[in-house]
């Protein structure tokens, strides 16, 4: 087939797949082995994207992923760093992934309420392998080569299931630690979250790590919310600068379900989030808040699509970016209102602050509306600090440099304020302060 815009994966992937497929979890199961082979064929059919693919116009990932890297193994991670990233409070349950592999000894999933189950794909491979294919199969129309790559190469993952009406008090934290002190490689973790009707979950996801060895994380999430279910999903991405993080989430909401997703990208050499939200039932609501703050030569790409498939749904995207150094940020947000989706309310705002002449932002808000009775709006700004706000702070006595730092922080603070878990919010705020020029001089007390 013609392959003008995508390229075949390097033969090293084929070699790795041949070598590893009999050792991958669930390989003893013909159905799963076939699924992995099929997934691998789809990767080859679709090809890896060059910047000539419209959706990858501003993000060039090929150099980082074209050649297969070894599948990462878990290590003994630095415990102090892990603990510093704990969020959700003392009651929180926690799954810890090191280099993309679940480490049960470090995890804490005991004492769950009836109707709530947390398990790993590896564990299912040993105990209920017949479930694996359904849990790891991408949607047939899935067009992302990386989603299929994940389906072919996954080695670990979490499955979180809540039965109807189950509403655990304590948050669940998924902590991904990239130990890149010695190992270079790739990992394809998978996350499945299913909330039954009326269930509610507070899910916290943290990405961090240490080291200079290049690692690539290709995370795929599949989230399904039943009728009236509610998910608060809060994500902090702060892997080391040596890392590449690609996180693709497909989230489906049944009627009356509610999603709040707060995501802060505060580290990593290249981070791309692909968020596809499907409002599949009437009255569903999705609030997506995002903050990204690439510095130096970092690159962050926020790719968001909200599908209004049914009437009376509400969505609101609120993304803010602060870009410094020679960094680059991309925001591509699309609202798609299907023909039947009357009485849709859909909003999108993307505001960016450029801190240097060499920083770059590419923002591309898009509306596709096929219904006539809808309220939709979008807006994007790219600018510098507001001179009148700067004057206001200086007129109250704040030195210019402090006023600038404070306003830069405030720009991010407007997103941080929406973060529900105070521990996570504090961790994000400290990282924001580290990234704000002169932020070290700001008093953290009262701010974070």
């Amino acid at each position, binding site marked *: 087939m013609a392959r003008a815009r995508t390229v075949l994966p390097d033969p090293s992937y084929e070699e790795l797949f041949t070598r590893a497929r009999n050792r991958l979890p669930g390989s003893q199961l013909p159905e799963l082995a076939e699924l992995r082979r099929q997934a691998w064929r789809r990767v080859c059919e679709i090809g890896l994207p060059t910047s000539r693919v419209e959706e990858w116009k501003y993000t060039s990932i090929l150099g980082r992923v074209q050649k297969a890297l070894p599948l990462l193994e878990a290590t003994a991670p630095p415990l102090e760093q892990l603990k510093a990233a704990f969020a959700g409070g003392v009651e929180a349950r926690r799954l810890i992934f090191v280099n993309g592999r679940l480490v049960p000894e470090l995890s804490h999933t005991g004492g769950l309420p009836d109707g709530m189950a947390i398990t790993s794909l590896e564990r299912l491979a040993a105990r209920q392998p017949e479930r694996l294919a359904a849990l790891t199969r991408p949607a047939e129309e899935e067009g992302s080569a990386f989603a299929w790559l994940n389906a072919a190469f996954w080695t670990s993952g979490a499955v979180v299931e809540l039965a109807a009406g189950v509403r655990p008090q304590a948050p669940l934290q998924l902590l991904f630690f990239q130990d890149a002190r010695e190992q270079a490689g790739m990992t394809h973790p998978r996350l499945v979250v299913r909330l039954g009707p009326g269930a509610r979950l507070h899910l916290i996801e943290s990405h961090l790590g240490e080291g200079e060895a290049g690692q690539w994380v290709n995370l795929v999430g599949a989230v399904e919310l039943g009728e009236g279910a509610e998910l608060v999903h809060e994500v902090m991405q702060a892997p080391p600068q040596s890392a590449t993080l690609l996180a693709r989430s497909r989230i489906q909401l049944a009627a009356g379900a509610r999603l709040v997703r707060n995501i802060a990208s505060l580290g990593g050499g290249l981070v791309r989030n692909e968020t596809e939200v499907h409002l599949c039932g009437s009255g569903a609501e999705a609030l997506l808040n995002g903050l990204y703050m690439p510095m130096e030569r970092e690159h962050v790409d926020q790719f968001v699509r909200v599908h209004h498939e049914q009437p009376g749904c509400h969505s609101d995207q609120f993304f803010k970016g602060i870009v410094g150094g020679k960094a680059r940020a991309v925001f591509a947000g699309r609202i798609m209102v299907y023909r039947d989706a009357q009485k849709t309310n859909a909003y999108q705002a993307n505001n960016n602050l450029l801190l240097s002449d060499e920083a770059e932002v590419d923002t591309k808000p898009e509306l596709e509306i096929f219904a006539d009775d809808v309220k939709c709006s979008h807006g994007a700004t790219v600018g510098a600090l507001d001179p009148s706000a700067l004057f206001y*702070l200086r*007129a109250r*006595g*704040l030195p210019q440099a402090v006023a600038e730092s404070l306003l830069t922080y*405030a*720009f991010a603070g*407007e997103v*941080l304020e929406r973060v529900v878990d105070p521990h996570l919010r504090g961790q994000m705020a400290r990282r924001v302060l580290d990234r704000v020029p002169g932020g070290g001089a700001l008093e953290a007390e*009262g701010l974070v």
Partner: protein
Amino acid sequence: MALLEIEDLRARVEGKEILKGVSLSLEAGEVHAIMGPNGSGKSTLAYVLAGRDGYEVTGGAVRFLGEDLLAMEPEERAAAGLFLAMQYPVEIPGVSNMYFLRQALNALRKARGEEEVKPGEFLKQVRAAAELLGMPQELLKRDINVGFSGGEKKRNEILQLAVLEPRLAVLDETDSGLDIDALKTVAQGVNRLRGGERAFLIITHYQRLLNHIVPDRVHVMVDGRILRSGGKELALELEERGYEGFAGKAA
């Protein structure tokens, strides 16, 4: 020595001359009012005093406590004891009112070589000021001026004034957008902050604020100049005759 000495001050905004030779002298402890029609240059004078960018001084001098005010950065003017209550206070989402106020107070103290305020003491001070102005505590925790009504924003300015304790407070149309009850509360607050060494320069379009904050001197400003100065009765005369009468007389 006068607290504030403005001498033949001329200033331009976007190339247009707005202040055409303003002279004014204000002693410690005095309250002066500047009245004038829209576009007469009152707010420009306020911004020039506070040091806002884009207001180009083309002539004259301003001495504040004997120092050359115009040579100072805005934050240096604040540290010297100048406070401008703004006509349009800026909304700053992402930072709480309380945090901002504490940082401002500590910045002023630091510039003056004083110690930082103790948290307990600060809280007490802010609460007292909020009570004085009938401001709900909840507003203090909110982001700076975000979601405040016009009246709440103006009260917030006076709250900052009460906590930062300047030597000279310039109130730029603090009465605009206030209903009569809010006006009274704000005036009461200002009156409680009067006395001692503190001086006020009150800029207003209407006389009604001056029923509640009685000035020592009133200056009438028209077309970038002070046309007349007098006692508090001048405000009443102005109310009766209107600015037209004054402008006509000048011509």
